[in-house]
């Protein structure tokens, strides 16, 4: 069976109409994280419990502007997957005892930002994967601690300015550490399903969540989350920014089924990273007052090297930039 036959999502028209998030919440206009949560919810349906650790989306749940139509549990910052473990175990026990009919079961979804996923909560996620917990993890990755004023996280890309890695005369490039490869860290635990997502590729997004939902065990997703406030672009451009991230090869769309990696979108020719970087204020120091070609080249090289490997592994031709 081909993917097309397995999925109920073929075109944008197949995006389910029911929405489990009401409009009018208190997040920033153009929040890419919110878009990801909406799409995710559409696939999984209404019966779920969000288990959330501190982050931007924590601020979404503010009475009376709570946009949710599902349950929500806050946990301490470091331990959302542990919280999910408790919820899942309790439901299993209740179902086993016949206190809840099996058809009333809920899906347990951990929802954190990149700070919660890459940094403080990594250990807890590792434990949940080790125990083969049947849960979903949705990380909306806006590549910094957005809620507290955009401080650097280990998901912040090289070259990005943040509140704690400001470009200064002695450190003009902004953040000089490379992002962690969370996809690969997760993959080392061999969960049944991992995928990267972007709302700008909505059909791909929905299909992946659908595919994961058919499996038992940990199902983990990292969604790029365009952040107009932190990245510095016009809120209406979130989809365009995310699409550029994919088209430049900065944000690869891929999945790993039982550890086997496959890219779900293979650009035939990458766009230069400069096209993406130059649209965001967090990279402004790479262009003004003087252009920092060495940093831009470093970013481009990283992207090129990544796709060279993909070309080899998946046996496809991808035109790189400047090579």
């Amino acid at each position: 069976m081909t993917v097309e036959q397995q999925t109920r999502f073929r075109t944008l028209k197949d995006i389910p109409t029911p929405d489990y998030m009401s409009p009018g919440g208190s997040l920033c206009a153009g929040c890419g994280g919110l878009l990801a949560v909406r799409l995710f919810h559409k696939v999984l349906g209404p019966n779920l419990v969000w288990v959330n650790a501190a982050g931007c989306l924590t601020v979404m749940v503010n009475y009376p502007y709570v946009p949710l139509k599902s349950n929500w549990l806050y946990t301490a910052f470091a331990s959302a997957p542990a919280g999910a473990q408790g919820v899942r175990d309790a439901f299993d026990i209740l179902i086993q005892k016949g206190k809840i009919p099996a058809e009333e079961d809920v899906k347990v979804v951990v929802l954190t930002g990149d700070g919660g996923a890459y940094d403080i909560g990594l250990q807890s996620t590792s434990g949940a994967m080790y125990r083969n917990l049947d849960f979903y993890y949705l990380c909306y990755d806006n590549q910094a601690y957005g809620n507290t004023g955009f401080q650097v996280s280990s998901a912040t890309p090289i070259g990005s300015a943040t509140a704690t890695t400001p470009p200064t005369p002695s450190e003009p490039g902004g953040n000089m550490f490379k992002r962690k490869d969370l996809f690969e860290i997760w993959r080392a635990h061999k969960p049944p399903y991992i995928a990267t997502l972007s709302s700008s590729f909505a059909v791909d997004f929905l299909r992946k969540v659908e595919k994961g939902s058919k499996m038992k065990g940990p199902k983990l997703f990292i969604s790029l989350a365009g952040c107009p406030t932190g990245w510095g672009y016009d809120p209406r451009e979130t989809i365009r920014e995310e699409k550029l991230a994919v088209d430049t090869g900065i944000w690869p769309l891929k999945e790993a089924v039982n550890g086997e990696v496959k890219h779900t979108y293979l650009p035939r020719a990458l766009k230069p990273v400069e096209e993406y970087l130059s649209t965001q204020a967090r990279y402004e120091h790479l262009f003004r007052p003087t252009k920092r070609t060495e940093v831009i080249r470093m970013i481009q090289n990283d992207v090129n090297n990544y796709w060279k490997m993909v070309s080899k592994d998946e046996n496809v031709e991808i035109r790189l930039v400047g090579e």
Partner: protein
Amino acid sequence: MENDETKGAEVTIRLGAAAGDGIQSAGEMMMKVLARSGLYISTYNGNQSLIRGGHVWFHIHAGTRKVYSLGYGIDFLVPLTQLAFDQHFESVNTGGAVIYDPSIVKPHDLQQGVRGIPVPLGEIALKYDKRPIMKNTVALGALTSNLGVKFEVLADAITDQFGRKNPGVAESNIKAAREGYDLVKNLGAQSFELKYDYSCTKPVLTADYAFALGAVNAGCRFYAAYPMSPASPIVHWMASHAKQLGLTVFLGEDEISVINATIGASYAGARAMCGTSGGGFALMQEAVGEAAMTETPVVVVDVMRAGPSTGLPTKTSQGDLNMMLGISQDDFPRIILAPRDSADSFYTAGRAFNLAERYQVPAIILLDFAIGDGGYSTVEGLDPSFTVDRGKVVSVPSPGAVSGGWFRRFALTDDNISPRSFPGTPDLMFVAKTDEHDEWGHDLSDVNSGLKEFLPLRVKMHEKRMKKLESIKKELRLPEIFGPTGADITIVTWGSSANPAREAVQRLRMQGVSVNSLEFTDLYPLNESEIKRILQVPGKKVALEANYTGQFETLLKRETGIIMDAHIRKYDGEPIYPSEVEKGVLSLRKEVHAVV
């Protein structure tokens, strides 16, 4: 001592709007205007962690005499939304004014004696931009005019705010402000004039920034943090100046990493500090015990916010004292300091480092949201002269200090402080053991614990650490009296609760009430005998603090046996207002125990 300070005029201003309307930058510009007109300043930032839509406000108290807190009521209210009007209009003083845009705000129920000054803020703002985002600068123009301050001072503040980004933005903001200024001037509505001195700019700082400056001034070379409001301004400042100051800023993956890195840096010889708020400190606790056991000096600053848990992320509290008194497990010495304001914070940072290193103990500093993040106050110059005292650091072994290749790092000494060396010093190798250990750092645990010849050694090592408290308490600052001695009523404060008490004391004394306040900044260890002497006053004592259980009041009772006659406790997340202190004191005067 406050006699000369009670004279002089003052003004209170509150700007209110929705988050995203730029009220904080407007507030900061107004604060600059008044500070550059020679006034003393104290502000409060009533913000939300919501990114847009929440109600926010900025409060400024300014005066020709020293101001300490938020003052009484509001003289000028500038509500940019109806909600801002509804929330605050009841606090406007008689003789005060409300500057508002009649197309946005309906100023219903204005009290008698309060003037409404309608200014078409939105309409004017639209002349200079497609969206009415400059209405706050127009409002600042109107306000500045009403206060009788020269327009040039506002124009400079606007240039400071926007000029660096884009000169065009500054220019149109100045034009918009000018229209608001002239409009009010032509109305002849000027109602308020203080004695301005444009030649005398008063520097203003928040306690967070002052603390960061003080730490760096005192030789801090390593600062570690993880994002948490309201402590983040410290790391933002440290990170932007790190290279310039020769400072290493470490951003860990959580608070456990943050404090352990700090302990590591201190162990290896750097003056090291980390910062967080209560929730983050909760994660650090185990490591503070580790620092105490290995006698590694460490300084931790906790900028308190209302809890428990994530609580009220952008609201204030003095609720973390109990946590600091009970950090981690079992007994170990610690120092807890709570500066009152910005200037105090600057000097406290230095004292904390010297004390921590001299006694090889953890030193905790308690700031809070009210003075830390956005709470600006005037500092009358900061004295940078400071002597770094690193305590008993040795680089050459003394006789008997080395045996079998090991340094007697935890030697029992007369003053209970052992010589300390840094790793890499020839001959002075030691293990920094978190298990109980002997003078050489060899463990008493696991193998020897419980054996009768080792029992006395455990007792000695434990006592050596604990006895440091006796020496520390003699060095800490005793509480200071504000106002004349021998009053009928004494308000007992700690940390930032000193500020509203001062203003209440000043005003109550003008009403003929015999009252003073006693300000604690050094909370632990307490020098019982001295404090008992100081608090042996014939008048009534009332404790003032921002938490539910009276954490300091309880500490005072526990350590000295002194029982307060009454208390004023506040825990709604808002700063303590002088009027609340006044009310509490007046009701005490009627022999009623007051709870606000």
